[in-house]
């Protein structure tokens, strides 16, 4: 399935929406600033992609050799955990070298990528799926959906909650865009952790409505 053709349909599926919302839960804690959401998205996307690729490669290698015998559930589960945690540790090291401020800003949430259900799902899918391409495309689709949702929530929370949009600092630009009308009297409650959960809940409901509308199921809209 082509990435662009299947993306909307797959992300909008009910199961996908639930998976996405559940995967977003811990990440929403760093959605107070857009730049933190960008780094977190980059982390989850890259780790999920590599976990799917490595999982599929291990599966292929395991089939042709004696590794197929190591198919016990606990072994697979621990293997997926070891894979995702090692890839997350690599991401942490790279992030610390490239952007120490972002590493400090993400704090304990960067290591938690290892147990994100999207990443573990990608590692698991990669291990089950016989096609490497399919496993990688699945992970890419999920990673894109995750990034889009997290950035949307961060944009909403930072712009309304602080009246700013924080991006990368470059020469002569400190990276902070102030929104004049909102910067004076921002809705500071949106910076609280509860706001992240509220945004996530309404995002899930909106995704459902869009899906139903897309499928032409108006009858489901009635209470």
């Amino acid at each position, binding site marked *: 399935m082509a990435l662009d053709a299947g993306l909307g349909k797959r992300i909008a599926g009910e199961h996908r929406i639930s998976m996405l919302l559940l995967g977003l839960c*811990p990440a929403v804690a760093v959605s107070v600033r857009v730049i933190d959401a960008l780094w977190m998205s980059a982390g989850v996307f890259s780790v999920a992609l590599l976990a799917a690729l490595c999982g599929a490669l291990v599966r292929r290698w395991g089939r042709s050799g004696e590794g197929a015998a190591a198919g016990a559930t606990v072994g697979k589960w*621990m293997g997926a955990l070891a894979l995702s*945690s090692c890839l997350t*540790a690599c991401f942490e090291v790279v992030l610390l070298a490239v952007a120490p401020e972002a590493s400090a800003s993400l704090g304990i949430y960067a290591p938690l990528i290892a147990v994100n259900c999207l990443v573990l799902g990608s590692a698991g899918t990669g291990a089950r799926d016989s096609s490497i391409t399919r496993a990688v495309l699945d992970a890419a689709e999920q990673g894109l959906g995750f990034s889009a949702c997290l950035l949307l929530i961060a944009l909403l929370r930072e712009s309304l909650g602080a009246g700013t949009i924080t991006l990368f600092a470059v020469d002569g630009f400190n990276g902070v865009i102030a929104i004049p009308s909102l910067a004076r009297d921002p809705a500071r409650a949106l910076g609280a*952790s*509860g706001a992240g*959960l509220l945004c996530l809940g*309404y995002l899930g*409901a909106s995704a*459902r409505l869009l899906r139903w509308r897309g499928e032409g199921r108006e009858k489901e809209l009635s209470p």
Partner: protein
Amino acid sequence: MSWGGIIITFALVDNVILSRLLGVRHSVCMPGSMRAAVGTGISTALLMAVSAVVGWALGTLALVPLGFSFLQTPAFVLAVAGLALLLRQAAARVSPAFVKDVSFPEVAVNCATLGVVLITTRGGYTAGESLVAGSAAGLGYFLVTVMMTAIRERLEVEQVPRALRGLPLHLISAGLLAYAFMAFDRAFLARVLGG
């Protein structure tokens, strides 16, 4: 910080679910009965307390002295998963019925447990403080899990818009509960401890 301060901070002020947004998936969004929620809450709380001490030992006695700090994430993740398996074995011997109600793989990959280990390790807590902090975080986790299950059971019989039913409504309820928990702030802590 005093031990009383650590307990109140980890259980209420800096609640692992409502303030840190860790473990929301397992405590807020997992469908199940109150019995299953109590079982999951108890097992996760126990795992948090033990993991905090094991995490301290791993970090302080092994990884940092050997210069392998960059391996903290894999070490902690696998240690927590191993401890969850041990906890399952122990629970199966004590009460087989208890094991049926609790999904131990879900408990093992609960980011709240790993989060507590990371907070205590990075916060420079001692072994005793880590144990107290882990237990208090577990208590807070148990409290919120039971509260959210009760809320969920009440919501199931209410008339709500179809688009909000299920997971979105659970998340919104948790968000509102998080706002309510904001009453437990630093000022509250100072007032309770008389500081």
